[in-house]
């Protein structure tokens, strides 16, 4: 009894410690966003200070937050929908009509995630330039879709694989074609998984900085570019940068907070059955 109690205590403390370590940079960023530029770079850092909204005022005055945010929403949601549209049929065929090469294809798809993006920056940049996709929402959406596709296919594949074959066969006996099978049976049955996959894809796209910084300038720039624009080689900018970052992550943080139950349920969807 005593042993389990102390074990529980240790585990609780450990959980809090890890949570705080993970959260600390975000906490520090939010704190900094309410400081003046001087306080922001002070050493030792001041924990107690007069909070000010000066940073936020300046950020709002210098850039059109709404436009960047809107771009982020369009690109992350658009790329996610596009990825699902491509990944559902792909995962369906891999899960239900596997060939000897399915396993290899899946691994190959995942292996593309191991390539540093900068390795393909040149070709992609040139292709985008020739196609006129630089600094366009369409271009960024396509890149994000490609970026997340391996993960989306992989996740959907594991969810689909867990669907009992009998149910789909019963559907076929009942007269469902492939499309109806997917729409009426497979998707409703794996909805928690599809939802969490979509959420993950939105979050990854939202936070993506490399491609957005390299492929956009102004028209299609999302919030990551908005943050970067407040970093400058001279002068004090930490408070403004923190304010911009806080504003940039706020929507996705709130979305994540609201959907955390869904996320956990979806990510453990196959495991607990």
């Amino acid at each position, binding site marked *: 009894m005593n042993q389990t109690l102390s074990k529980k205590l240790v585990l609780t403390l450990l959980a809090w410690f890890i949570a705080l370590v993970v959260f600390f940079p975000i906490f520090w960023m939010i704190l900094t966003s309410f400081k003046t530029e001087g306080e922001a770079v002070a050493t030792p850092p001041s924990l107690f200070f007069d909070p000010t909204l000066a940073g936020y005022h300046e950020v709002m005055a210098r850039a059109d937050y709404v436009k960047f945010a809107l771009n982020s929403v369009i690109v992350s949601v658009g790329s996610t929908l596009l990825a699902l549209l491509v990944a559902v049929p792909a995962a369906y065929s891999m899960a239900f009509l596997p060939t000897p090469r399915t396993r290899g294809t899946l691994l190959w798809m995942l292996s593309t995630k191991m390539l540093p993006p900068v390795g393909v920056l040149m070709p992609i940049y040139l292709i985008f330039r020739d196609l006129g996709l630089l600094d366009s929402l369409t271009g960024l959406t396509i890149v994000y879709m490609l970026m997340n596709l391996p993960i989306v296919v992989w996740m959907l594949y594991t969810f689909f694989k867990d669907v009992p074959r009998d*149910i789909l066969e*019963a*559907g076929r*006996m*009942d*007269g469902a074609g492939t499309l109806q099978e997917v729409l009426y*049976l497979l998707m409703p*049955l794996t909805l928690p998984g599809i939802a969490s996959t979509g959420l993950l894809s939105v979050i990854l796209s939202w936070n993506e900085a490399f491609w957005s910084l390299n492929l956009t300038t102004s028209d299609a720039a999302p919030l990551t570019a908005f943050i970067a624009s407040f970093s400058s080689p001279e002068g004090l900018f930490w408070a403004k940068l923190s304010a911009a970052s806080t504003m940039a992550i706020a929507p996705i943080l709130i979305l994540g907070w609201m959907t955390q139950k869904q996320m956990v349920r979806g990510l453990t969807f196959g495991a607990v059955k």
Partner: protein
Amino acid sequence: MATLELNNIVKEFGDTQVIKGIDLEVKDREFVVFVGPSGCGKSTLLRMIAGLESASSGDIKVDGQRINEVGPAERGLAMVFQSYALYPHMTVEDNMGFSLRLAGVPRAERRQKVLEAARILQLENLLDRKPKALSGGQRQRVAIGRAIVRNPSIFLFDEPLSNLDAALRVQMRIELARLHDELDATMIYVTHDQIEAMTMADKIVVLQGGVVEQVGSPMELYHHPRNRFVAGFIGSPKMNFVDVEVLDANAEGVSVRLPGGGECRVPVDGGDCRPGDTLTLGIRPEHLTLDDQGPLSGKIVVIERLGGVTSLYLDTEGGEWILMADGDVSHRVHDAVRFGFEPGRAHLFAEDGLALASLERHPLVNVERKENRASTSGDDH
């Protein structure tokens, strides 16, 4: 309502042949059971009929029409799965009406057909529930209801009762038999349980290793098993077997020496046997009788009293035998007993496992379950 015909059906998975050329005829409104040990190919055969697997070669015909290339839904058959395979996200009503919805049947008509099936299966008050809120037996009935709603020409059942507990299985067995009577439909039923096969079938198809061992009415399989496998598979408890030596044989009977030295003349066609040959004698536990003058003897190892009958497990010279005795026998473990049997009840199997033909056919072999069916079917197989 329909007939089914299988002509030389073969199924190969890679290099392995799992169905090795099966011919079968199923008559209109017949209840046919495929039975066999697991891995015998019975489910694969059913899935080929359903259209969920393709046959590597051979013809599948419904009402004389080849349907090998027809999709599962267009074959007009309905299947009940072992796992029920209900759609978990739909209510009972939607589950049962799904095929009609896909076929574009208007809502009102759909509802009416679902209600009709629900009435037959006593599911009326469960129509709004989801499958997870149902008991095993109720789920099974919904799965059957889903099949009924489609008004199929042939019902296919893939071990539908094996997920139910024993009591419910017996109840559902009776319900299925009644349903067959009420719907008057052709049904094909797969099971590994020989009791289900015996109790429900008009015709049993015994499969092993992808080939048909025997096709016949339950009584035919019981009284005239074609070979030793069928003899051992049909009937519970299992038939007792012992090797015996032929003393004398001709077309009117075979005399054999029993373990312990006794003799017995079995009324089977022994035209191909010679004195000195070794045959296998098979005798069912329920055909052995305790008899102080009997030619066989043994020691009781275990007694199982079931009330109406008592199973005696005997240690005999021919190995361990089972004897089904009267419920009121007073014997106890370790008692020595003598027993015998009516020679007409015994079976003899040659070395290749084939049974020697009985001289007399059992009178119930050709009797059909239902009187009116005699008009639509010829003699048995």
